[in-house]
């Protein structure tokens, strides 16, 4: 594994994303319009929604955006280009660079989403809880890392099969559920302004799940890449 190789692969991903900005803009627009649909359909003019709904809805929107944006990392890669990577880089470098790139992408999307979401969606605040922004951001970072590493691997698996876009959702949702549940718990703790020591368990578990998923992808991707 070569650090420079990984860096240049990430750079290439970023560059190609930047050159065809319509994809990036499309994803942000997807996020924004989903949030707006939720805003309209909950009829938020009438009143704010519960903290639980607010939180769960935010993560569900992020989940769908993540599945859509990460799906393209292998599925939309053309055959010729895949062959080219195959000849210049080792599979481990490719998966590591893709995971890092997707993590950055999802983090950016999540932050933009969080901004728009908290801008439009009013949150009920029954018992005057203080919103713990730092821990909510930690939840966003850990969540995007987890989503990025598992979805990148799943996208690699799905790209080998026919009908891969619908397969992507089927394969990824059950695998992602533990991450999403933990993240929802963690961000709910942050929203309620609970004492920070309460969330230590969740953070540790999230880090552990991320570590498992990352190391399994690291070990298994070379086998997938061969075909």
């Amino acid at each position, binding site marked *: 594994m070569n650090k420079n190789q990984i860096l240049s692969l990430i750079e290439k991903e970023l560059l190609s994303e930047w050159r065809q900005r319509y994809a990036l803009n499309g994803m942000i627009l997807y996020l924004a319009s989903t949030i707006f649909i939720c805003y309209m359909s909950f009829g938020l003019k009438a009143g704010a929604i519960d903290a639980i709904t607010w939180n769960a809805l935010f993560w569900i929107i992020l989940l769908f955006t993540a599945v859509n944006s990460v799906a393209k990392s292998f599925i939309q890669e053309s055959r010729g280009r895949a062959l080219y990577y195959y000849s210049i880089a080792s599979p481990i470098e490719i998966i590591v660079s893709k995971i890092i790139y997707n993590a950055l992408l999802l983090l950016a999307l999540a932050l933009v989403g969080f901004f728009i979401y908290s801008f439009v969606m009013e949150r009920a605040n029954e018992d005057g809880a203080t919103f713990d922004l730092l821990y909510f951001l930690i939840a966003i970072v850990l969540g995007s890392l987890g989503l990025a590493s598992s979805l990148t691997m799943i996208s690699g*698996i799905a790209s080998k*099969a026919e009908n891969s876009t619908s397969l992507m959702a089927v394969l990824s949702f*059950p*695998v992602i559920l*533990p991450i999403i549940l933990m993240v929802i718990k963690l961000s709910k703790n942050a929203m309620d302004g609970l004492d920070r020591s309460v969330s230590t*368990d969740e953070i540790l578990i999230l880090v552990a799940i991320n570590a*498992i998923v990352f190391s399994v992808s690291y070990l298994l991707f070379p086998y997938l890449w061969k075909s």
Partner: protein
Amino acid sequence: MKKNWWKALALILVTYTLLAGLLMDAPRLNILNETIRNLHFHVTMWFGMVILLTASMVYAIKYLRSGQITYDDKSVEMAKAGVLLGSMGIITGAVWANYTWGEPWSGDSKQNAAAICLLIYFAYLVLRNSMKDEQQRARVSGVYDIFAYAAMIPLLFILPRLDPNSLHPGNGGNPGFNAYDLDSKLRVVFYPAVIGWTLMGVWIASLKIRTRQIERALED
């Protein structure tokens, strides 16, 4: 005959489980009462499922290391037998829950984890069907098998134990396994039942593995 001793053992153990599990004296506890007998079916089937899915994962690793298609046959049939035991475990669990917790599905964290675990393996089977080339199918689904197994461990073993509201024994102040069988009466049936159901699963899987190999030989 020498090779088949374990099939006889499976038959004996499962018959023993059915007879002893239903007829033997069972400890009576509040609410649970006689339903504790389901321990020999519901819990043991889950044990069997986990053992079979582990075997499936081990064969997937063996396939990826060696590239021999027979390991893939074993891997997929073990997974299918595991899913069969898992589905029966979830049904027997729902029946049990209906009498003790008042409803077949109460959104308990272990029930949810079990349902998700089955979803993962259904997805595995869907993935297998979506590819035609044998080697590629074996490789890709082997990768997913291992990946799914790694994702299943936190799901089944860690997350439910953190939920303070779980209705299952051993969580949130509920009595653990040991509280049921102070006189170890249940253990006498429980452990043989685990082995019996697992061997049954292996038997089903081995028959299907052989049909697969015969079919492949006929095609060639």
